[in-house]
């Protein structure tokens, strides 16, 4: 299985892997929103061994991690967030989830100067809990009551990303300048929202109750930002 960064053309099968395995689903545009905002952070596991049947065979995606940067961190600290991670049942025990996570985490630190990465996991999902806590080194931050649509609680977990701070390019025998403390590169990228102006016919997100993300296929991209709380 190859582990590589997600490309836009992977999205249909990433979407299928997601809706096959997990109850939290998203439409294509939400995947695009990730891929267009933080293209370095999402990774796929691909079965490359199958001989293609037609010249149009898309890569066979057997796992993915969909990741982002928190756009407006409440604690003011740059950090990444795992939106979704899954590996097909047929491809378990190969360590794919861990490998996907590690690639994504490093990119968060390297590209966006993330200090830590956070995620949510169902309290009943012991396999995932094991991966995050015991294999990767996440800690449980808190329990978020009734986080999921079906009423289940979530562990809110996080992991510091210090280990990835500026050490990788030395091998290239190039002058490698110190990363320094990165502050707010994100804010800058979002700077010129003004251009959006009369973009017009966007509809208000009538955000579903306590439900993430499933708002707005017809919305502009800005409407795709996660919403946790009730709109009304």
């Amino acid at each position, binding site marked *: 299985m190859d582990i590589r960064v997600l490309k836009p053309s992977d999205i249909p099968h990433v979407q299928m892997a997601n809706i096959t*395995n997990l109850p939290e689903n998203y439409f294509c545009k939400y995947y695009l929103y990730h891929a267009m905002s933080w293209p370095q952070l999402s990774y796929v596991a691909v079965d490359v061994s199958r001989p293609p049947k037609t010249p149009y065979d898309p890569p066979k995606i057997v796992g993915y991690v969909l990741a982002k940067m928190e756009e407006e961190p409440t604690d003011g600290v740059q950090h990444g967030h795992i939106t979704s991670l899954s590996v097909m049942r047929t491809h378990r025990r190969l360590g794919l989830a861990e490998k996907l996570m590690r690639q994504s985490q490093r990119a968060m630190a390297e590209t966006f100067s993330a200090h830590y990465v956070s995620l949510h996991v169902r309290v009943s999902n012991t396999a995932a809990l094991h991966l995050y806590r015991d294999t990767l080194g996440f800690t449980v931050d808190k329990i978020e009551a009734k986080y999921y649509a079906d009423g289940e609680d979530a562990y809110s977990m996080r992991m510091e990303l210090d280990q990835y701070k500026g050490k990788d390019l030395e091998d290239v025998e190039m002058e490698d300048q110190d990363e320094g403390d990165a502050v707010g590169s994100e804010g800058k990228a979002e700077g010129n929202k003004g251009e959006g102006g009369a973009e017009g016919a966007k509809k208000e997100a009538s955000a579903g109750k306590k439900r993430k993300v499933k708002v707005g296929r017809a919305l*502009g991209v800005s409407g795709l930002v996660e919403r946790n709380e009730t709109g009304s």
Partner: protein
Amino acid sequence: MQPLGTKENSLFRSVVKFYESKQYKKGLKAADQVLRKVPNHGDTQAMKALILNSQGQSDEAFTLAKLALKNDMKSHVCWHVYGLLWRSVKNYEEAIKAYKFALRIEPDSQNILRDLALLQAQMRDYEGYVDSRSKMLNQRPQLRQNWTALAVAHHLSGNYKSAEHILNTYEETLKSPPPKTDIEHSEASLYKNTIIAESGDTERALKHLDEILPGNLDKTAVLELRAKYLLELGRNEEAVHAYKTLLDRNTEYRAYYEGVEKALGLNRSDAASLEQLAELYETFARKSDRLDAARRIPLDFLTGDKFKTAADSYLRRMLNKGVPSTFPNIKSLYVDHEKMEIIEKLALGYTAESSSNGSASAEVNGGHSDRFEESVLYFLTQHYNYHVSRDLEKALEYVDKLIEMNPKSVDYTQAKARIYKHYGNTKKASETMSRARELDVKDRYINTKCAKYQLRDNQNVAALETMSKFTRNETAGGPLGDLHDMQCMWYITEDGEAYQRQRNLGLALKRFTSVADIFEIWHDDQFDFHSFSLRKGQIRAYVDMVRWEDHLRDHPFFTRAALNAVKLYLELADNPELGNPNSSNGTDKLDAVERKKARQKAKKEQEKLDKAEAEKKLANAKKANATGADGEIKKEDPDPKGLLLLQTKEPLEASLRFLTPLLEFTPQNIDAQNLGFEVQFRRKKYLLALKSLLAAHSIDAENPKVHEQAIRFRQFVNDAKDLPSQVSEVLKSQLSFIPADTDLKRYNLEFMKRHSDNPSHIQSAYNVRLLLDPSSKSAVESDIQKLLDHPEITLEDGLRGLRYLDDWKSDEKTKDAYREAAAEEWPEASAFQKN
């Protein structure tokens, strides 16, 4: 522009503000206040139209916008709004026209220019896009994204030089280097680098990359590009080093290993390289116990005893760990028959080991766990279930042993269901998969499989019920609505195929149309990113997306649904009665009994569905306004069963919605070309039919459908009298692979002889025999049944034979006899069982 009083003027401005902040009610109120005073104020009417449109009242909006234009033809606001309305209904040509009118009145308006530019990007009018972006840059050169945008416009139109020049010009205006955390700058530099590389100047691309490399924020991309350039430039030593650096970061990416191999001058197909290759991968593998790629890749190139040794240690390692995906991970090796046999022998050998030391905790061969024993049995189950190495009886034997050892295993029960599927027993397969689902009702994967197997067994209602355990059922349209909202392609397609098998053509067509609709949504999804990506500064990703969207419909999700839809439209064209809801669905007297049965079953399914739907509606009745998952106001579907779709007067024209993209984006797909011929032949577009036939012929000259179509077409051309002379000239000269004087019967016999070991070709030859000699019907019917004894026949061939009997309108007795004979060959297959 119509002048307003001070009060009204400020009211008007508030209308605009309310619109922009999406406070539509307030906006409407303010607009009405203005209009009470100045009833014919065009700009206000236009703004009101825009707000109405945002509230979903498209028709009213258009009426009002047209009125506004009538009142104030010289207002850019009115034209701009008119353009926005067209854009919102996706009529981009009209929208562009309206924007251009607006710009003629107000040439410097950034808003209108931007809206025009976005549409030009969406429509791939790069010439226009360059033009608009140049104007926008001239107006606001202080914004970096205006420079980037013009560079993108040049780049996409294939003008690398201008693209690079624009980016350089901007960089020269920078007085001090941007801070290191400036992601926009970091990405812009890399974007420029990819433009240089795409222009073909790798040397300069590498030089530039080395300049921007320190501190660039996308390290993975930088390292990958650098390794690639070095390899291309033949700087092999450095390339080896670069790829090894990448492997230190990610050990599971074959492209990196291949880079090392190439840079070392190693070649997998060259025996002299093999020794070195094997050594190379051993050094990689030694680095960590957790690597898979470095251990798995050598199995691809090793042969003979070396392969056996390597495969043995790989399999033992995986099976000892109890990795359930061991088989999926190696099955691609089976294209090599020798490797397949070696692996089979090894795995069978392991069973002997595990049973010989199965007694208590014997530690003979390094000590095998129970896990090893189970893993081996599971591996063999999958081995004998795989099409290349299939022996379903053995597979069943192994899986039953496993289930006895571990009755609660979802995997084993699922494997058993798959075996039944391969037997063709859709009923047992779906029952078994349901049992697997019940073993872990919280696992959506197994739930998904269960629904899929139910659909394969034509249980549409049960499948939806299964899916509903994980869908958002409060969505408008219930579980099915949610599956559409979440663009669950596989379900929609399988649901349609199940309806197609049951002859519920309306719902089948409905589903395939939904798939095409979702592809349209996916195509529209890119629209917002034409502006969003410039703000985000992730230009390389954006260009990737644009290029993907350009060939979006070559995706197999589209192809599969589209092929089905075209076939269905062809049926409608051949038998218009099928579209008539009051007809008996094309029943012909000969197979009335069977049709009736199918119809009754379909009717029962439909009744169940209706009942379920009615109940849902009742439950939802309290919610006055049904809204979708995304907050859109859902309009009631006026044709939930696809009956209106079926009643099309021009099925062939309607099929083009599917056929045209098939032929444009997947011309190498022979099924698409086969259908292209059928549709164009019926449309009497003979040159287009010829084009598809020739395309198919060049993909596979011996394809059975090509054979049938060539003979039909030759016969037609020879007999045709009233074709325009130009057309018949082209046909005569181009249809050269089957010349005009061909003895078609003999041609057919020769085809059959050439393919005497291939049942699907023989069936095709029978079909042609009947075409050339209608009196041979009973002989052909008996031959196609005898073909069931052919040593090479597969279940798929057997099913196809039955479809030929349908095409030939054979009587029920003949088909029953066929089914009976087929049932002897495939006793488990549901399709041949009675009832």
